[in-house]
C-alpha cells in the first residue's frame, strides 16, 4: 500500500519517491533540473526556523523549497515506512 502526498505534507525524516509535478513553465524546468524528477527519492531534512522553506535532500544535494512549490510536487511514501 502506498500513499501519495505532496512534499509539503511530509515531515522531516521521511523519504518520498516522486510521482508527478503539478507545476508548469520555468519553475517546472528548474525543479526537474535540480533533480525533482519522477522516480527520484527525496528525503525531508528540516524546516527553517520560521517553518518555511523546507530543506530536502535530492540527488545528493540539499535544496530548499517554499510551500508554494513543495505542495505541488507529489510523491509516494514507501508502504509501511513512516
Amino acid at each position, binding site marked *: 500500500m502506498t500513499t501519495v502526498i505532496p512534499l509539503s505534507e511530509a515531515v522531516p525524516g521521511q523519504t518520498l519517491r516522486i510521482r508527478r509535478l503539478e507545476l508548469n513553465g*520555468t519553475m517546472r*524546468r*528548474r525543479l526537474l*533540473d*535540480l*533533480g525533482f524528477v519522477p522516480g527520484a527519492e527525496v528525503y525531508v531534512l528540516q524546516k527553517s526556523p520560521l517553518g518555511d522553506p523546507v530543506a530536502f535532500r*535530492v*540527488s*545528493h*544535494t540539499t535544496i530548499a523549497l517554499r510551500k508554494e512549490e513543495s505542495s505541488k510536487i507529489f510523491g509516494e511514501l514507501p508502504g509501511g515506512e513512516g
Partner: protein
Amino acid sequence: MMRHCCENGASCHHKNPSDQKGKTTRFRVALAGNPNTGKSTLFNALTGLRQHTGNWPGKTVLRAEGTYSFKDVTYTVIDLPGTYSLYSNSADEEVARDYIVFEQPDVTVVVLDATSLERNLNLALQVLEMSERVVVCLNLMDEANRKGIRIDDRKLSSKLGVPVVKTAARDGKGLTELKETVEGVARGHIQTRPFRIRYSDEMEEKIKTIEADIRTIFGNDLPSRWIALRLLDGDPSLTEALKKRIGKEESTDGAIAQPPYPAEA
C-alpha cells in the same frame, strides 16, 4: 563604424585558432558547470588571477577572462557563472548559456562537483549534446575522497566519450593533467566522441523536422540540435534571442533588458 567584435576582449569568433594570421596560437577555454563547483577557484589556479570565490551558488554573475601559457601556447580562460541547465532563465545563467551556445569556445571544460555527480551530469550531458570539444573536470575530489565517494574516471570517460580529469582546484591538484588534456583536445590530438542522448523515437522525429529548418536559416554556425530541443521545450525568449543574433546585436548581457514594469501598476 567598425563592426564590434572584440568588445569584451575575447568574444571574437574564431572557430579555428590558426585563422589568426601571424599571431601565436591562442585557444579559448570556457569553464562551465553547476553553481558552486569551483569554477572560479579553478580559474584562479590556472590564471593566477583573483576572481572572488565563495561557498554559495551564484557567487559569479559576470564572465571573467584570464590567460595561462602551456607549452608556448596561450590559453584564454573564461570563467562563467554557474548554471543548472542550458535551458535556464535567470540573468546570470543566461550569460553562461549564451557563451557556451553562441560563442562556441575551442574547448569547453565542464567542471563537475564530484560529490553530487548525478545532478551535475544533467548539465554535462546537455553540453555534450551540442559541443564536440569537451573536457570533463571532476573537481572537489578531496571532498569526494573524504566522503568515501569513489569514481571510476576511466569508465566515466569511455561512457561520455570525452576525457575526464580529476582535480582539487583549491589545493592546485590535477592542474597539469587538466592543461595537458585541454591542449590535446584543442589541438585535436585527443579525439572526442561526445555521448549524445537519444530521446524517445517520437521526440527524435520532432527534433529532426525542426533541425532541418534551423540549418537552412543558420547554416552550421549554431548548434541546430540544441536550438531544436530548446524550441520544442517551448521557450518563447529563444526566438527573440535568435532574431537579435541575426540582427548582429549583442547577445543578452544579463541586464534587465526593458523596464519590466509599467510606470504605475
